[in-house]
Structures are given as C-alpha cells and as structure tokens.
C-alpha cells in the first residue's frame, strides 16, 4: 500500500493525531467550501417552489437548526471534559462546523422569506427533538463523556448524516449543495464518535449496559423526528430511505442489539 503520501502507511497514533488536527480540518474543508459563500456556488439559480413545498422546507430547516444548535451547545461544552488533548482539538473543529451549519441554515431560511427565524423555529420545532436536545445537554452538564459522545456523535450525527444525504438528493439545487457540504462535515463527527466509543468500550465493557439504556431512551426520539421530517418534505412512505439503517449498523458494530 506504499506510495508517496499514502495515508495507509501511517502508524495508528500518527493517523489519529493527523485526522483530529486543525491542520487536517483546514485543508479538508478548503476542498468543498472554498469559493462557496454559505456553502453554495455563487450564481446558482433558485428553483421555483410551490407554497406547500416552501412551507415544508421551512419546517424541515427549522428542525435542522434545532439539531445543529444542540450539537453546537453540546460539542462546545464537551471540550471542557474531553479525555485527551486530541479529542479537545477535534471537538474545537466540530464546534466551528456546527456554528457554520447553523449559520448556513439560517441564511437559507432568510432566502426563503423567513424574517424572524427564532419565532419560526419555536413554532415549528418537533417536541421529540427538543426533548432529545434537553437530555443531551443534561449529559454534557453532568460531564458524562461516554453518554455525551454516544448521544451526540453516534445517535444524532448518524441520523443527520442519513437524512441530509437523502434530502440533498431530492432538494432544490441551493438547498442540495448546502446540505452536501454539511454531510461532508458529518462524516468526521460520526466517525470520531464511533471510533472513540469503540475504543472506550473495549477498555471498559461495563459501560455497555449503561449506554444501551441511553440508546433505548433516545434513539426513538430522533428516529421519530426524522421520519416526520421526511413526511414534511412530501416524500412518500415507500420512497423514504431506511433512516435507521446506517444508525443500526453503527450501533451493531459497537455491540448493541437493536
């Protein structure tokens, strides 16, 4: 597997230090964000949306804002009790990503005619997602690393990754390009979560039962939310993606039964 710059020749520690660094993050996001203000190529034409489509999209984006705000608040709080310097630096890059996601989503809401996004989010936010956010922030307040990483980087990020990826395939061109940029960030966030937790469960298998109880409590909240989101987008039940598929595969790899 050798070759100049082959990532596969890196040692394990060198690989982990590289991918969790700000240097890596800068050069990675440059590839898909440079020259794209608010995540979108300048001059991309707005598609004509019916009133029903526009309203459904606004509700969906409002709920994405709730999810991204939860991740922004949680990841910034987690830096204070992250177990090592590498995790702290990675979380700092995640905070920047989540702040950007919130900003581009709010900008898109503005383009769709929303003048008071806070009021709109308050009115349209899904109750299950708000409950999820509340529980996630309780784990963060309790400085519970395993529960926080599991709730945020495995459950929330994994489901956002699936929903955003599918939505990008059916959305208007501006929303689609904005979402593709977010999906590229989500790969790092969910990969960090699964790998950190996977290593931790090997060292402390007793954590497993506690996380399983958290999973049973939280995953239905997020699954219900995103299933509803797809309904708001007008995607017929039979055409909806297997939302739970990627998520269930991730938790199965970590040793949790569905």
């Amino acid at each position, binding site marked *: 597997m050798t070759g100049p710059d082959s990532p596969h020749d890196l040692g394990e520690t060198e690989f982990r230090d590289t991918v969790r660094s700000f240097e890596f993050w800068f050069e990675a996001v440059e590839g898909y964000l440079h020259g794209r203000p608010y995540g979108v190529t300048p001059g991309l034409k707005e598609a004509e949306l019916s009133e029903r489509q526009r309203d459904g999209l606004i509700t969906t984006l409002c709920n994405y804002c709730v999810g991204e705000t939860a991740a922004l608040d949680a990841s910034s709080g987690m830096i204070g009790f992250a177990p090592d310097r590498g995790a702290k630096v990675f979380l700092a890059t995640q905070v920047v990503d989540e702040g950007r996601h919130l900003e581009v989503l709010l900008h898109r809401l503005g383009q769709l005619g929303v003048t008071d996004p806070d009021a709109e989010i308050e009115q349209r936010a899904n109750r299950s997602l708000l409950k999820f956010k509340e529980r996630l922030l309780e784990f963060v307040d309790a400085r519970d690393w395993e529960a926080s990483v599991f709730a945020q980087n495995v459950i929330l990020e994994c489901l956002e990754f699936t929903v955003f990826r599918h939505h990008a395939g059916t959305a208007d061109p501006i929303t689609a390009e904005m979402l593709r940029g977010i999906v590229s960030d989500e790969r790092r966030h969910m990969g960090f979560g699964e*790998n950190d937790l996977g290593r931790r469960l090997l060292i402390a298998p007793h954590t497993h039962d506690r996380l399983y109880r958290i999973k049973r409590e939280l995953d239905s909240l997020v699954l219900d939310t995103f299933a509803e989101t797809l309904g708001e987008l007008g995607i017929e039940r039979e055409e909806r993606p297997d939302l739970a598929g990627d998520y269930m595969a991730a938790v199965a790899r970590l040793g949790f039964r569905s």
Partner: protein
Amino acid sequence: MTDPLEKPTPGPRPRETFELEETGFNEVPKRFRRFYRRWRGPGDKLGPNEALCPVCKVVIRSTKTLRAGDRVYCMPCMSRLELVEEDGMLVAKVIY
C-alpha cells in the same frame, strides 16, 4: 512425468500496482485525495485495490491490490479498517 507433490505449490498471486488518478473527491487534504473516491451507488463496482468504508460509505483506494488481512485508513471519517474475506468477498471491518 513429474510427481504432482513435487510441483511448487502456487502461492498468492503477486500484488498489482495501480496508478491513482484524482477522482474529484475533495473532503481530505489535497495530498490524500487520490486515495479516496465517492461511492456511486448500487451500480458501482469496487476495483481490486478498493474497499468501501462501512462507516461513511466512501471508497478507499490503494496503490496495490488489497487482500484479506490488509489494514487501511478512512480519513474522511477517521476509521481504521481491516479487510476480511466473507462469502468470497473482501469486506472492510472497523478496528477500534
């Protein structure tokens, strides 16, 4: 006639070498981009030097033929993977 037991046992075929071109993948620093590509969906086929990351669904590429037991890295999602053979197919498994 040569005794078949005296014939040299066939070893694994030598690994092929691949020249990696840019694929348009832009989610890692420039110097690493040719080692990854996007998965194009159910119609897509993996080459002998490629593996699909089970975590983030990006195709990982190597300059050599991949075999069971090889370890590769998925930089876009930070995963370390080992290739295993399952039902005659090469599958990437995450190593924590």
